[in-house]
């Protein structure tokens, strides 16, 4: 008799575990659910009926359009597409070159340089704000896309160096040496051999930086003053300041601002999580 009882207990425990997880997951999704439901409804319904009421009329298209045009989320969105892709790729490209040198340099200087780059991830962003604003005004790149693009590249480089260097050191030295014997220049070895081999690391780096830049608020806040250059998260924060009574539009705007990174996560989960783990190991 003892065995079936133990079996029943195990089944009961599994059922309880699943129940707990399901309840927790439902609770976890409440803020997202409430937001999506709000974005689906007309604002008059949002005001008049409780948030869980089913949409009387699907108004998400109007809401999204209002956020995109009137709320100017469209302009912010396009700015951030540029920042996240150009700066993300640019930072990883420059960082991979530096990481290649750092990883292949047989000198002590290689490690020293690497630690110098790592130091760049250590200072709170707050320390950059005052100087960057002054530099932006003095250099004429305040409130320009070009300026913000360069700042994002710079901020992203140290961590990208970290990811790339840790990948490059796993590539056997023999490969490098035999390429030298074959008469390839250092730059050729980098472009023809190491870069193609490093595709997974490049993917991790670019995806991680894309998400980080897409979600940045602080630099967009202090270095832009108009929709011309304002990134999407900063734009959304402004929208949240103006549209305090129009939750339907605001919810739609929030969805617009969040969709790209959520998609990146859903489609490229493996790389994304690897980037996070790499970041954790660094810390």
């Amino acid at each position, binding site marked *: 008799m003892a065995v079936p009882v133990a079996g029943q207990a195990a089944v009961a425990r599994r059922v309880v575990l699943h129940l707990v997880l399901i309840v927790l997951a439902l609770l976890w999704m409440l*803020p997202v659910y409430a937001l999506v439901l709000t974005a689906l409804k007309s604002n008059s319904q949002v005001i008049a009926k409780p948030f869980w009421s089913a949409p009387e009329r699907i108004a998400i298209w109007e809401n999204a359009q209002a956020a995109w045009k009137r709320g100017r989320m469209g302009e912010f969105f396009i700015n951030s597409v540029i920042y996240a892709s150009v700066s993300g790729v640019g930072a990883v490209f420059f*960082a991979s070159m530096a990481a290649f040198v750092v990883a292949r340099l047989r000198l002590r200087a290689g490690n020293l340089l690497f630690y110098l780059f790592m130091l760049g991830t250590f200072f709170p962003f707050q320390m950059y704000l005052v100087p960057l604003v*002054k530099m932006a005004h003095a250099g004429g790149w305040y409130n320009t896309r070009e300026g913000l693009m360069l700042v994002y*590249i710079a901020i992203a480089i140290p961590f990208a160096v970290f990811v790339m260097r840790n990948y490059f050191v796993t590539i056997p030295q023999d490969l490098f040496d035999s390429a030298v014997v074959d008469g390839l220049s250092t730059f050729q070895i980098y472009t023809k051999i190491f870069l193609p081999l490093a595709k997974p690391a490049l993917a991790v780096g670019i995806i991680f930086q894309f998400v980080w830049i897409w979600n940045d608020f602080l630099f967009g806040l202090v270095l832009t003053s108009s929709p011309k250059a304002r990134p999407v998260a900063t734009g*959304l924060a402004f929208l949240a300041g103006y549209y305090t009574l129009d939750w339907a539009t605001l919810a739609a705007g929030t969805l617009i601002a969040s969709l790209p990174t*959520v998609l990146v996560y859903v489609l490229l989960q493996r790389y*994304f999580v690897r980037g996070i783990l790499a970041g*954790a190991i660094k810390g």
Partner: protein
Amino acid sequence: MLLPALAFFGYFLVYPILFNIYVSFFDWSGLGPVTNFVGLRNYERLLTDHNLRRALFNTFLWVVGMVTVPVALGMAIALMVDGVRGEVFFKSIFFLPYTISFVAIGVMWKWMYYPDYGVVNSILRHLGLGGLARAWLGIPRVNSFAMMAALAWLLTGFAMVIFLAGLRSIPTEIIEAATLDGLSGWKLFRHILFPLLTPFTTLVGAMVLLNTLKVFDVIYVMTGGGPFFSSETIAVTMYRETFLTFRFGYGAAIANFLFVLVVICTIFAIRQGFKREVKY
């Protein structure tokens, strides 16, 4: 090949840090040349500023809240989802908030706490608990805790991912041996899993600690630090003093002060890490 990265690094990262230290000894409104040298006056002000003291206390509350609740919850969820049927589905749900920007999280939770017809108050009234409904973000101290829930919501998924990696790193033989010895459930956790996860707990704790010291976006969006500066943290005060009150020198000094806190906490975290290093 090093040159582009070093140029970016030098111009946008090294030079600003040095300039930030330099400018913290000046009284500067952000316009015109930096000429009004005031020595340590900005740092003296730092010590006597009531708003900054409250911000320091709030930051402390945030740090304590974030290194406890999301870390414990993340560990619990990791233990529950590990190997369960539908693991990928559950993991995705708990991790989803981490992929959304702080600003979007802030807007989402502002809607949760919206006083008139927001989510939390609507639910409370529906359940006949209307007496508990309140302006969550408008009451000092309450607003800090309300906003912490939003950040905890996001950090739990992060902690879960790290702890899942930690659980994967534990050799299965150890768990098999422990199970053969009759350990299961709570005892297995208490005597085997928890000690083996310690390096990961320290890691998550340290990362959460260092990032929470700088918490800014969520607060800026949800309360702007108000009402009456009640929910400001150091980073929010720094922003207000610099860009709203135009005391750039003082703002730079606050940022440097924040850096000193980060250094102290890093040293503390590294020491904890070494002390608790476990070996199988």
